[in-house]
């Protein structure tokens, strides 16, 4: 079964509508979800550590 997905950013691409199969689409989403779950936690932890590091750096700078 084909599924039409609108190319929403039409000014950035050539074709107004693009075709992709439902199976390929579902598989792509499943793969993306697993990968993005790992990636999003990694991103969040890194950002959180950066914020914590900056806070501690500021306070320890004050100690000097």
């Amino acid at each position, binding site marked *: 079964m084909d599924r039409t997905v*609108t190319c*929403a950013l039409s000014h950035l691409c050539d074709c107004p509508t693009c075709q992709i199969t439902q199976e390929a*689409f579902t598989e792509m*989403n499943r793969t993306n979800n697993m990968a993005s779950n790992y990636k999003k936690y990694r*991103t969040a932890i890194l950002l959180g550590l950066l914020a914590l*590091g*900056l*806070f501690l*750096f500021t306070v320890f700078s004050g*100690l000097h």
Partner: protein
Amino acid sequence: MSDAAHAHAHDDHSHHPTGLMRWVKTTNHKDIGTMYLMFALIMLFSAGTMALLIRAELFQPGLQLTNPEFFNQLTTMHGLIMIFGAIMPAFTGFANWQVPLMVGAPDMAFPRMNNWSFWILPVAAIFLLGSFFLPGGAVAGGWTMYPPLFIQGGISYDLTILAVHIMGLSSIMGSINIITTILNMRAPGLTLMKMPLFVWTWLITAYLLIATMPVLAGAVTMLLTDRNFGTHFFNAAGGGDPVMFQHIFWFFGHPEVYILILPAFGIVSQIIPTFARKPLFGYASMVYATSSIAVLSFIVWAHHMFAVGMPVTGQLFFMFSTMLIAVPTGVKVFNWVATMWKGSMTFETPMLFAIAFVCLFTVGGFSGLVLAIAPVDIQLQDTYYVVAHFHYVLVSGALFSIFAGVYYWLPKWTGHMYDETLGKWHFWLSTIGMNIVFFPMHFLGLAGMPRRIPDYALQFTEFNQIATVGAFIFGFSQLIFVVVIMKAIKGGQKATSQVWEGAEGLEWTVPSPAPYHTFVTAPLVR
């Protein structure tokens, strides 16, 4: 409606909680976005009321309505609440609503953390507003919280420090959510350089927040320990350095200005192409200009401290680096004008506010350049010229872009078109009122009227009276904004999914109002 939009409508889960607990427990980005926006509106009116009290007091010389202590409480709380309670939460509300819709994500990356990010904000607001009722009243040391004054105050100072911690935590959590969503949850095919400008500006803003909010948290933590635990970080009597606080504060404070204005650039960059019916001119240069502004914002902080005293080399460095920011900002203004150039323009309310933004923000930018000149700044330091400058940036800049964004996306949010006539009334009264309030302040500042005083010399009377009349026009015209929003929520002409003829982007492929769950299946962008 596109096929994709139909698909999203069918994907919509039937689960749609109702009642009060829906709002308390919600993890839905649209609900949380709505709560941020409503919270910001309430804070806008709270701090706006304080502004009207300030202007009423300044209508004529002498003390009429307030005593000096209460006046200083009003100016301090007006600044703190407008920045941390109104403008920042409003932009976060836009981010919550629009970023997932624009990148084709089903929700924010961490919905539960998103809920917490919002719900700690009202607690901070209660601390801030409640401090008016404590012994000694609210904080009166200015929104910059400079020691030694801030070390000496009563219990409300501790509450304010706690509130700043909470608001900072909220911002950091919100930023982590936004960055993670944008970097990891974009629809297949939506590369970074295809992202809408609003998403780009919020990505950069979120990085700015993560880099600066911990610094502010560190500074106020040191204030807190100085006040309560006998440390002497900023207490000169104990070997501390109060000027160090200013350096740390402005290392946060100047990027904060861009935190307040970069999302505004993003909103305007969405609106102008829509109503000019042309793609944004110089998309890539817009991205690079925004990034440049963000980087430069970290090396200019001491231009707020020329009058404190620093070596000439330092003055020159901070003067020229500040002026350098005019280059990427000029690129942006040029691109907005070039987008409008020969476009098929129409002037609906969002476009009117966007055009006013471009014109009036530029006025604020130019007065910023004047203040960047070190010898001039020493003359104008702490005068009404500075007040005029940052209100042109934050009212006709940040606030007008918020108005523009609300009018632009309100049909998508509510499913109804807003009342265009009332919208135009709101625009014209706001624009005229805003200029009547703040333009005369340039003259007052140049003539030497200091800021943060409830009384003034007779020669400043006329311009102050004009400013006060303008303030009441501007203030009461915001009631029209509330009426427009309420009318659109209640009903009105049904909005199509596209809403605006020239609008482009994923958010316009979903029905209006946007279903409770969107993009459960990611769309494909080519």
